[in-house]
């Protein structure tokens, strides 16, 4: 979805190419101060980015509060699930969840508590929202983290190979294959995998569990193996639908570099072809890709909602799906905030780290 992830930084660098013959001179070597000055410039830049992230986080907090108030229906009625309850009981519940207060007061309270990490009490589970989230977080991190590492490695490796052999049969195959998987709905792929590999078709027995994260009876090393066993299908699903993006970006940024003069210089120096690629082309092409990686990581957390739902994975995504159907406002709000915060955090991290990787920018 957000394949266009190159930060403004990059564009600035490209735009600042001193093509103009005249006008305000590009900061020449004489203008470049000692390292201390460039360090302060970088710190100022990073501080700016962090401040921007803080503003974004606050905006998300506001959105998370108001957006879900628009859901039609009374949450308390939903909670009681149609049972007969007295008006007193309803009033008591309203008071319990702070729904008796005017909206703006609910809002300030929400914001104040959110700052301390308190997102209220879940309607559904009658437990602190944060407890539910910390319970589910490890599962999500395990799933997305594993998938992220695998699709990043595959994507970059295949992307670089494809670009270097641009137009070859291998390139065409990998691009076509990646595009096809990219077009497949992740939940459908998950369901198919469950049918073929967990349920089993005809004589083929199920190889993997249909869902969940553990069988519940193991401990020690066996537990690790059990979790890994449960992990295989969800990870395969996530990797299959996600690696295409990394591959395509890596491929196109390496293609951009391939006509570059500095590669001719490297060849003229007598470098072997694979050294030209490894030492010169790939490091340059990696720069835009690195940014994408961070953005991917942020997005995968939210993107795992479907996979977690399909595989009954006890993570944040599954929790979100459950909470939505109630709707369990405090939980939905908090999860929405966390999903968005993950993206913001990763984007900011990419912005802050980028200048450290690319000597042309920021320092």
């Amino acid at each position, binding site marked *: 979805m957000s394949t266009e992830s190159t930060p403004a930084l990059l564009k600035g660098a490209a735009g600042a190419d001193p093509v103009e013959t005249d006008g305000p001179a590009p900061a*020449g*070597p004489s203008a*470049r101060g000692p390292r201390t000055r460039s360090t302060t410039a970088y710190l100022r830049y990073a501080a700016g980015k962090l401040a921007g992230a803080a503003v974004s986080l606050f905006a998300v907090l506001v959105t998370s509060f108001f957006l879900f108030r628009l859901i039609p229906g009374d949450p308390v009625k939903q909670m009681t699930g149609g049972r007969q309850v007295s008006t007193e009981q309803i009033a008591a519940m309203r008071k319990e969840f702070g729904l008796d207060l005017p909206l703006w007061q609910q809002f300030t309270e929400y914001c104040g508590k959110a700052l301390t990490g308190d997102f209220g009490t879940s309607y559904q589970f009658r437990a602190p929202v944060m407890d539910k989230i910390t319970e589910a977080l490890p599962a999500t991190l395990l799933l997305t983290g594993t998938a992220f590492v695998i699709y990043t490695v595959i994507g970059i490796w295949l992307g670089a190979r494809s670009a270097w052999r641009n137009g070859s049969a291998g390139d065409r195959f990998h691009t076509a294959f990646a595009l096809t998987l990219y077009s497949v709905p992740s939940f459908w792929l998950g369901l198919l995998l469950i049918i073929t590999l967990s349920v089993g078709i005809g004589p083929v027995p199920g190889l993997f569990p249909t869902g969940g994260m553990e069988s519940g009876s193991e401990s020690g090393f066996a537990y690790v193996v059990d979790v890994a066993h449960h992990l295989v299908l969800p990870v395969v699903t996530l990797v299959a639908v996600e690696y295409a993006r990394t591959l395509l970006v890596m491929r196109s940024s390496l293609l951009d570099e391939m006509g*570059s*003069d*500095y590669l*001719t*210089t*490297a*060849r*003229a*120096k*007598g*470098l*072997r072809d694979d050294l030209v690629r490894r030492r*010169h082309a790939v*490091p*340059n092409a990696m*720069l835009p890709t690195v940014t994408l990686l961070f953005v991917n990581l942020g997005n995968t957390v939210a993107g795992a909602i479907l996979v977690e739902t399909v595989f009954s994975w006890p993570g944040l995504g599954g929790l979100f799906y459950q909470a939505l159907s109630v709707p369990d406002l405090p939980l939905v709000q908090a999860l929405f905030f966390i999903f968005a915060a993950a993206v913001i955090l990763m984007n900011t991290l990419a912005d802050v780290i980028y200048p450290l990787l*690319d*000597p*042309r920018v920021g320092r």
Partner: protein
Amino acid sequence: MTAVKTESVERPEAGPPLLDVRNLHVTYGSGASAVPAVRGVDLRVEAGRKLGIAGESGCGKSTLALALLRLLPASATLSGQILLDGEDVLTMKWGRLRAVRWAGASIVFQGAMHSLNAVHRIGDQIAEPILLHGRAGPAAARTRAGELLEQVGLPAARADSYPHELSGGQRQRVMIAMALACDPRLIIADEPTTALDVMIQAQILRLIEKLVADQDLGLIMISHDLAVLSDTCDRLAVMYAGRVVEEGPAEQVYESARHPYSSALSAAFPRIGDLSSRHAPRGLPGDPPDPSALPSGCTFHPRCPAALDICATEDQELRVAGPSRRAACVLVEPGTAAAPGLFGGADEARSTS
């Protein structure tokens, strides 16, 4: 296509010349869409001599530069001979070719901004070929990189800079330092001063001249600027549509060209103070030909102010046009006086349109 043999012209030294290019052809693509970029070029450079190659866009001069070390893309086919120290570059094995690159001959590319890798420090980029060709260990290579930087007039401390932290002139100096890294005997400078200011250009040219003289290197300098080449080089070859159309001592080619094209090109660079060029810019009608659609006969004939009927049909080969001079024009008879006054005064032939 048989080109005139180079043997007869001059040969003061006994050994083979540093570089001897014989009947070099370069064609991009193949079949119906083949584009001839270089069409039979003979060149030779002796150690310590400087050869200038002049020409305009599309004349094949940059292709020629890259062809000398077989750096052209795979779509290019080469034929002929490129004898570097007597060894043919075109028939070398890959390993041998890589060993010859930079150590036998190195290149100073045009537009140094893009020819340097933006994410590596310049010291590392200079040291890279030294390490690669096994000339020194890592520490010694770094020291050598610093020395080379000082040799081209930059402080050794600059080795820690990145290319974007340098000005255009400084980057070109880095390119030169890099070209010297493996003590090659031949340096190919492809438009080394294009896009630089006149003052910086003068600095860089001075530097190149000094280094070439000090180390007795051979130099091939490629440029569109005939005036600069005539000032810097010993001999000059003027290229047009993939061929050398005139060749000879630099000063003579610039001052009294025998080929109408060189003559026009030289007139396009006005001498300040020369009243005949005051308020009278000189040029040629038309444009340099597209290599994929070359005119018949002499490729220059559509733009030639002195063209005869025969020029449209008959290809002209290089012929002797004076002592150690050659030109490819039907009007050139061996021994005739120089320049048939084609561009003497204001004339009306130039205003086309």
